[in-house]
Every structure is written in structure tokens, then in C-alpha cells.
């Protein structure tokens, strides 16, 4: 009878609205669902306190789903909502898998291959190869020297393999981000409507906590598959390259575009001959950001079996091995600085070759 105090807070409202019939009889709560902790507490408090009706305005609960459910059984509980979402997802999972699985299979394959290549190639081939790549992109001996020292330092403390695994994942994911992101950005720059549709999606991808991507992905794919973390990284890191490609093309000098029109360029000639080359500094800035964000995500993705330095950080947290975690964390910082400096140097090179006035 005392439990009726909590249950009946909105009984009056339900009755006043004449919804009692719809709720299914006068008996609120009914007891079909197990008693919640709050109800239990309320009951025990009610029994010990005893006095009064306890119905003061001060204690009035917000008419949330759970509270209303107490008054009227036909109103669903919040738990039903989360359960419904889960069941809904599970029911479309198989259908989704049929589509998504084959489409993303190349990603698994690429990640596996690239991990195998980067870790199985002996260090005395891999390191010069990476340094040659750095030289090719940056044309700066200073940066080549810095990268050489950083790699040597990582190798010295036996983090070479983990660093290569992390790099392998980043290379593949950043490459795919550019492959998909640049065309999306171009399409956005040419259609205001598409831009209006895509920007909220990008905003969502950017603000959603990275852990949240992982939850549905775990349901979709087996944890042993590399594409699980591959997709999570790509979703998180693709945003800047899309945004900056769109922005870059929209920022191209309107006078130059007008000149291209005045000389009768087709829209294809304009895109490849004028817009993309002139947007390249912005696109490269996007690529730089994409690489940095995939590095951030690769650490979190170690929760779902992504190999590399992130695993060591995770070990530091899980088994409270402070030193292991800190050294791996420092390694990640070194990788980040390397990737940033190299991409920035190539960006500066592009900028210099087309500085305006």
C-alpha cells in the first residue's frame, strides 16, 4: 500500500486525462516488471519513516518514461527503448552483413597484407625504404634525419614491431580515407544540397565519442577481423579530408574560375585543370589532419584487437604497468610528430610551388 505513493504520483493525471481504460485497468504498475531499486528504496524508506503521505511537491519526480510506466502500464519503460534498439539492430544485422561484409572485405585483406609486409620485411630494408619515402615527400634532409633518429630510438627500446604495425594500419586507413573522402568532398563542393546533407553527418562522426563507433561494429563483425578496427578508424578520420576538400574547391579564386569559363573550359577541364590543383594545399591540410586522427583512433581501436603501440598502452592500463604504458605512449607521440612533420613539409612544398603574388 505504501509503494502506491511512488507509483501513484501521476495516477491523478492519467485519470484526469481519461486514459485509465487505455492503460489497462485501474491497477497501476501491476507488477509485471520486476521491482526497481528505486521502488525498493522508496518502500523501505516509507516503511521506516512511516509518517505522512510523502507526497510533497519537493519530491515530485520528472514525468519520465519510467515514472509514467508506474502509473500506467501501457507506457513503455526506458529499458524497453534500449532493448528495442538492440533487438532492431540484431534483426537487421544479418541483412546488413550480407551487404557490408563483401564490400569491406578488401579492407581486411589490405590491412592483413600491409601488416604482414611491414613487420616481416627486415628492419635494414624497411627503415631505409621509409626514409627514402620521407625524402621523396618532404625533400628535406633535416626531416629525414629526425625520422631516422626517432625510428632508431623506437627500435632501440624494442618497440620497432609495434610501431611498424601502427604505421601499417595508418597507411592503409589514411589511404582509403583519401580515396573515398576526396571524391565526396568534390561532389559536395559542386552541389549545395549534397553539402547540406553531408555536413551534419560529418558533424556527427566528429562529435560522437570514438568508443561509440565500436559498439555496433562489434555486433556486425567478428573481433578477429581487421576490418572491424579499420572501419572505426576510417569513419573517425575521414572527416577532415572531406571537409577541407569541399572548402578548398569552394575557396578557389572566383576570377580564375570565371576566366576558365570565359575560355570555354568544360566542367571536367575546370575540375582537373583548375579547381583540384588550386585546392591542393587545402586538400593536403586535410590529409595531414586525417593521418593525425587515424593515429589517435588506432590507439583506441586496440580495444578491438588492433595491433601496435596501442596494445602496449592498453596493457599499461589493464595491468597497471606504468612504465610500459608511458614508453608506448611516448612512442605514439614520436610517430605523431614524424607523420605531422613529413606531411607538413610536403604541404609547404605544394604551397611554395603556387604561392600567389
Amino acid at each position, binding site marked *: 500500500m505504501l509503494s502506491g505513493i511512488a507509483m501513484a504520483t501521476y495516477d491523478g493525471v492519467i485519470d484526469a486525462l481519461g486514459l485509465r481504460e487505455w492503460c489497462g485497468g485501474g491497477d497501476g504498475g501491476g507488477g509485471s516488471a520486476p521491482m526497481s531499486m528505486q521502488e525498493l528504496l522508496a518502500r523501505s524508506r516509507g516503511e521506516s519513516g512511516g509518517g505522512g503521505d510523502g507526497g510533497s511537491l519537493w519530491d515530485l519526480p520528472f514525468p519520465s518514461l519510467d515514472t509514467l510506466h508506474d502509473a500506467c502500464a501501457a507506457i513503455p519503460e526506458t529499458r524497453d527503448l534500449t532493448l528495442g534498439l538492440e533487438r532492431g539492430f540484431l534483426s537487421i544485422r544479418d541483412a546488413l552483413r550480407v551487404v557490408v561484409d563483401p564490400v569491406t572485405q578488401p579492407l581486411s585483406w589490405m590491412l592483413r597484407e600491409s601488416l604482414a609486409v611491414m613487420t616481416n620485411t627486415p628492419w635494414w630494408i624497411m627503415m631505409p625504404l621509409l626514409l627514402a619515402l620521407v625524402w621523396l615527400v618532404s625533400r628535406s634532409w633535416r626531416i629525414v634525419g629526425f625520422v631516422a633518429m626517432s625510428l632508431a630510438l623506437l627500435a632501440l627500446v624494442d618497440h620497432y614491431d609495434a610501431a611498424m604495425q601502427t604505421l601499417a594500419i595508418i597507411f592503409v586507413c589514411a589511404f582509403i580515407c583519401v580515396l573515398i573522402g576526396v571524391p565526396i568532398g568534390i561532389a559536395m563542393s559542386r552541389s549545395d544540397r549534397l553539402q547540406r546533407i553531408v555536413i551534419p553527418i560529418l558533424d556527427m562522426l566528429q562529435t560522437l565519442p570514438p568508443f561509440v563507433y565500436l559498439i555496433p561494429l562489434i555486433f556486425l563483425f567478428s573481433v578477429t577481423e581487421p576490418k572491424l578496427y579499420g572501419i572505426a578508424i576510417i569513419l573517425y578520420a575521414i572527416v577532415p579530408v572531406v571537409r577541407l576538400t569541399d572548402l578548398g574547391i569552394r575557396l578557389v579564386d572566383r576570377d580564375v574560375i570565371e576566366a576558365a569559363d570565359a575560355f570555354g573550359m568544360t566542367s571536367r577541364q575546370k575540375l582537373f585543370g583548375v579547381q583540384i590543383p588550386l585546392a591542393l594545399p587545402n586538400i593536403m591540410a586535410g590529409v595531414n589532419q586525417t593521418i593525425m586522427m587515424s593515429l589517435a583512433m588506432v590507439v583506441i581501436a586496440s580495444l578491438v584487437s588492433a595491433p601496435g603501440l596501442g596494445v602496449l598502452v592498453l596493457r599499461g592500463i589493464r595491468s597497471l604497468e606504468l612504465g610500459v604504458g608511458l614508453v608506448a605512449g611516448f612512442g605514439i607521440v614520436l610517430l605523431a610528430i614524424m607523420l605531422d612533420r613529413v606531411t607538413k613539409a610536403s604541404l609547404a612544398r605544394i604551397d611554395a610551388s603556387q*604561392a600567389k603574388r
Partner: protein
Amino acid sequence: MDDNVKISIRHLYKIFGDNPKSVLAEVQAGMGKPELLESRNHVLGLSDINVDMHEGKITVIMGLSGSGKSTLIRHLNRLIEPTSGEVLVDGENILTWNEARLRTLRRETMSMVFQKFALLPHRTVLENAGMALATRGKSRKEFEGDANRWLDRVGLGGYGGHYPYQLSGGMQQRVGIARALTSNSGIMLMDEAFSALDPLIRTDMQDLLIELQAELHKTIVFITHDLDEALKLADHLVILKDGLVVQQGEPQHILLNPADPYIEDFVSDINRARVLRVRSIMDSSSGEGEFSGEVDHDDNLENVIAMAEGALDRRFRVTQDGKPVGTLEMPAIMRALVPRRSARETARG
């Protein structure tokens, strides 16, 4: 030089706003720019423009900023679509053309020079000069010869490998002109082409254009806000104000017979002695008697005054290609140098 009409603009209207067609009838009935903005929230860009541009001549469209001159020139290659009217090129209304045909027009019949140069910053000077030909699908080898020839002609020989940002403003605009010339089109549209340059360079560029024109006889449409420039270049001068043609005709004629106070104001500040030519004020009856000398019909008055050493009692024989065509007396020069005033203003003053 034949006198064919190359481009003809007929009853051209351009109204900016949400629904220009809806207010067109009112504009055609005579609603003015301020009223249109106030009552209908549309901006009148151009109103009933009728201009004939002759083949091989320089037509200068002059007006202050906001007069619609840049809007007008963009109608000639349809960078801007009109609200109503016709633009005839070689007698054909280009407004009815489809995209492919319009592209051919832009590639082969018209080229354009821009106020802010609008060169491709990531391409070399040579590639910029050959842009029109490259757009038509010619390979670098095919356009290199033409592009280099025109770069030489505008005084940029040897700069082909540079990038635009390495050149000064004047040199960049020379590239812009070379680009337009390399396209080998009959019509050149020049949108305030020299306005961004400093005065000395501007004079150089004007001389270059006159020199090129004497040789090439292109149909040039030149936009400017500078009256001196307009008078120097124009074969046919069109003066725009608030989207309306206020007066058009031969520049000397406009100078001597301004149609309304707006034009008088406009022409009152220029150096008339330098702009007016002997042919505009001479007496074409070949008078008899003493002559103190001979002057060419195309000489400006400044030269004649210098020749007369300031004396007022001189009398000159005017010649064209060595043959006498008229006489010129000094008092006529003095009268011509005083700006004409409208009857109303004279009465007041």
C-alpha cells in the same frame, strides 16, 4: 577596314533579384532603379541597352562603378544571362545557343582579358598564354609556337618558364593579353583590363593595345571607368549610368556635344587640348589665303598650340595623307577648349 556590325545588343535588360521576370514589365514601362529597389526589392542592372559594335573597331563602355558596365560585357559571352533582350554576334542571337555551341563561341570567337588578370597561378606563363589552345585540346607542342610568338609580341620573350606570381602586375596583364591573342579570336573583351595597374604602366599598356590594334584589327570591347583611357582608345564610346546608356557615339563628338549635365560633369575635368583632334573642330571648306603652316587632321590641339607658339592670329591648313582637307584658325581652338555648358546651367551661372 569594313564597317560590318560584329556584335549587336538589342533591348537588353538585366534585373537582379528573386524573380526578375515578374518585374520586367514594370521596368520596361519605365520604373527606375531606386523605385524598383524600394517597392519590389529587385536591383536594376541594365535597362534597354542598344549598342552596335563594329568589326575591327574599339568600342569602349565607360561608367562609374555600379553603372553596369562589367555586367554588360559578361552578357557578350553569356557569363551572365540576361533577363530579356538579344545579343547578336555576326547576326545570330547567341542567347538561343546550346551549351556546346556557346563553348565553341567562347573558345574560338571571343577571348577575354580581366581586371585582376585571372591567370592560372599553378601554370607557367607559357601554359597560361596557351590556355585557350590547350582548352581546345591542342598539345603543348602545338600551342608552344603560337604562345611564344605572342609572348614575344607583348614584350615577354624569355619569360615562358616563369610562374605568374614571379611577375609584376603589368607583366601579368601582358600575359593576360597574350593569352587572349593566342586564342586567335576575332573579338576581344577587356574588362577594366588596365584599371589595376599604376598610371605609368597603364599608359604603356594602352600604347601597346593601340599598336596591336593597328596591326590586327580585332573587334575590341573595352570596359573602363577612366575617361582619359576611354577617349584615348575609343572608336565608339558608350557611356553608362545606373544601367542606362546616357550617350554613345564618336568620342570627339561626345566631348563637343555632351547630351546632359552628367556627361558635362564627366568631361569637365579632362585635358581637352590633348584629347580633341584637329579634324573635330576644323572648317572643312578649304579656305584661301595665307597659312602659317600645315597640321595633320589627326593632330591634337596641344600640338597645334605649341606650333603656333601661343599666338592667336595663326591660321593652319589641315591635311590628310598630304592632301588639304580644311582650315583651322586659332580662335576655333580657344572656343573648343572651353567646356560646353547646357543652356540651363548657362542661364543660372
